[in-house]
């Protein structure tokens, strides 16, 4: 399987695209929040936070939805600040 970076201009663009596709979900609500977060908040995360976000994307849709809507809290404390940021991402000016 070819894994060359092709004609991509930016380094790391491939990982970014992969992440962008992982933000495609079964629920519009998650699409909206994850897409906005990825664009405006993700670039300023630290490397460990970025890894936590990648892990967060592996969760099931209804679980993510419950956490974001505040119906339940994530067991993993590393997810809490990310969930908080997701809740805020669209409300920002």
């Amino acid at each position, binding site marked *: 399987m*070819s894994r*060359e970076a092709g*004609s*991509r201009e930016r380094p790391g663009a*491939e990982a970014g695209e992969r992440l962008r596709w992982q933000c*495609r*979900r079964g629920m*519009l609500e998650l699409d*909206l929040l994850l897409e906005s977060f990825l664009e405006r908040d993700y670039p300023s995360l630290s490397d460990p936070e970025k890894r936590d976000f990648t892990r967060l994307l592996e969760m099931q849709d209804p679980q993510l939805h419950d956490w974001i809507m505040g119906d339940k809290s994530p067991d993993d404390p590393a997810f809490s600040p990310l969930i908080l940021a997701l809740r805020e991402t669209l409300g920002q000016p």
Partner: protein
Amino acid sequence: MTLPRRRFDTLIIGAGGAGLNAALQLAGSGLRVAVVSKVFPTRSHTVAAQGGVNAALANVLPDTWHWHMFDTVKGSDYLGDQDAIEFMCREAIPTVYDLEHMGVPFSRLDSGKIYQRAFGGQSQDFGGPQAARTCAAADRTGHAILHALYQQNIRARTHFFDEYFAIDLLRDDEGAVLGALVLEIESGEPLLIEAKTTLIATGGCGQVFRTTSNARINTGDGMAMALRAGIPLQDMEFFQFHPTGIAGKGKLITEGVRGEGGYLINGEGERFMERYAPNARDLAGRDVVARAIVTEIMEGRGCGINKDYVLLRVDHLGEELIASRLPGIRESARIFAGIDPVLEPIPVFPTAHYSMGGIPTDRFGRVVAPAGEGAEEVVPGLYAAGECACASVHGANRLGGNSLLDILVFGRAAGKDIVEYIKENPHHRPMSEASLDQALSRLLYWAQTEKKPSGKGKAKPAKVTSVRELREEFRKVMEDHAGVFRTHKTLSEGVKLLKSIRKQLAGIHLKDHSKVFNVARIEALELENMIDVGMAIATSALGRKESRGAHSRPDFAARDDRQWMKHSLYFKEKDRLEYKPVRSKPMTVKSFPPMERTY
């Protein structure tokens, strides 16, 4: 380049409830099944279905499949095919029991039986008292079903191609479908999947409208593939809109908000529903409220800088009532609109929710299209099920609780019919290299650095330069010209604009030509699909000169059974329309003649 090839008995495109239920029937029969999905299967849009599944189990109130059938025929505004509706309502009962045996955690009564809740449009005794017909697994029925089906398929060794995007169907000279060309998103490499039978189960297409409750993945891929293979789409003018989506976002705000006393105001602060529905006001039917909102905006009485939404007020209800009766609404408004509804009204606009139309099938899930003398000739080897298909059980409007039912019943029916088809047609047909070349050319098209005009006519110089920009322009045109408010003027202008957008797409080229995880290329392919489907919707809506179910034309305000009791068929070639009769004869019972639809 040698194209890798794989062979299966059946190829299923789409891994939502319809695709996975079909796959399960097949894998259980020992057939080799491939399921292709552009996202991980449990991220299919079925996961978002909260409502439930209708089945006349009579666990809470008396019920029969025949009453369920009556409600569905009436809900369809008499455009549904009554044989398919009878079949669906009968099959609903074993389908729900099947799910129960699969481990779907349905909510229960104290007696241990499945709990059933009442939904709008459900009646006992053919239009009598309210029925209770909807089985639900709390508020996550879709997720519970999808999860159970996925686990069962893993156990049954269904072969999943996750994150593969289907490019086009392959057909031979006799019209038989031979499989599909697909693209592995990760590697960017094409793969030919040859199959004796192919099932399209790609779900809906709500993303064609700017404001939609549908997930990003709902781009009508399977519908567009059918169009490109020469198969028409049926009844595409019938699209269900929910009146209150969060403006600019699409997230649905439940009707319950108005039920609890919330009301709509325009830019002048007026409670405008009083003018449109003096008695029911904000609680009028979905279509009435949706049309009133759009009319206010079109006449310049919208809110905000662009005057492109109205406001839903709940602040007068008080914080306590909002917290106790409308939990979730406050959070939703905060998260998605950045406002607190206790203090400020919520900006809303009608949101596109469900496509009644789709790929025409019979009640066995077989795709049927006009050929020779017949209006419904089976396309050999091709099946469709779920929101992308049109069986047609929803006709001009769908009842709540019938969409999960549709995907499960017809997914299963298609699976069963495929087993029989393969018994009679046990061999792969030879691949059509011409058809394959055509499918590959679609892929190569987006690999070009500079676009050359292709096909007939020159590509217009692009006004917009990116797929994203053109997508947003396209979705706005669909919303403004083929959405809730439809007249000859809006629709004919819309069709013209869509033709121009179709030409503009041919002038755009992608900057990113890498193969690996090239999302921009997938989005270009999706936009092509959306434009094909959008054209089907607008053209069919322009053609239907009556108002029926979800399709409303102020310039033809009445339902016209004499001229329009027929299904529309849109063909991509020359944007042509044909019509075929409604199947008003059920399988075993008497048919329900059209009556005025009042609730």
